[in-house]
């Protein structure tokens, strides 16, 4: 599904992915720096294009390209698989600054809550990535169960979008402090 507006933040903007982003999204997901966090890879650029074509018309599936304030594409993030008032947040890749990767997570939460009017989100983190697990907890994620993603062990987290954890409030405060114009 294509969200027609650009979501603006202090450090990054999110805009819906298009076919013009196919090569970028294919390459960034295949980048070895992101292999620990990225799920299944499209087997080819053409397959990635097929996925984007499917995604663009799929209801309740939002996939964004993350742009820094120079307009450069630095990442991807998505919200999808909405059911029973719960949406999954994932497909996250970022090669930018820590400020940028932190803010994209906050922007997508705000998008789900304020635009889609959804109050609960979930996310899955590979079990072999303790730093990502630590991030998920600090962002207010509650570990509910262990699951399999592909052939890998993973942890399933849920987030209450109506309640910012103290840590999340602190993160927002740090971003605000670092935002200098």
């Amino acid at each position, binding site marked *: 599904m294509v969200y027609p507006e650009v979501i603006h933040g202090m450090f990054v903007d999110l805009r819906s992915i298009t076919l013009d982003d196919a090569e970028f999204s294919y390459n960034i997901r295949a980048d070895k720096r992101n292999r620990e966090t990225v799920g299944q890879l499209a087997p080819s650029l053409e397959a990635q294009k097929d996925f984007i074509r499917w995604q663009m018309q799929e209801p309740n599936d939002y996939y964004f390209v993350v742009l820094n304030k120079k307009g450069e594409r630095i990442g991807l993030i998505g919200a999808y698989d909405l059911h029973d008032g719960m949406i999954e947040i994932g497909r996250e890749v970022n090669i930018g600054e*820590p400020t940028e990767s932190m803010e994209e997570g906050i922007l997508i939460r705000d998008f789900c809550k304020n635009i889609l009017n959804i109050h609960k989100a979930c996310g899955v983190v590979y079990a072999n990535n303790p730093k990502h697990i630590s991030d998920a907890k600090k962002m207010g994620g509650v570990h509910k169960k262990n699951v399999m993603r592909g052939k890998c062990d993973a942890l399933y987290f849920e987030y209450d979008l109506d309640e910012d954890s103290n*840590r999340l409030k602190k993160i927002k405060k740090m*971003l605000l*402090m670092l935002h200098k114009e």
Partner: protein
Amino acid sequence: MSEEEKMSVFADVIDMDLSDFSLDTGLAELDNWDSVAMLAFIAMMDERFGKTVKGTDIRNFKTVRDAINFMV
């Protein structure tokens, strides 16, 4: 700021006790050295040292000592 004080500041950044790590601890071993901690390090450097830190600087840190040495 003494080395001991810097260690204490770093402990706050990664939200761990001083007893949980040493100067030679590898940052790859510290689960708490995650994206949130990197952001906290950047914010702390800005606030306390007036220094702008890039993600590339931080990603080059191998040990706690590297991070401590950056605090000038």
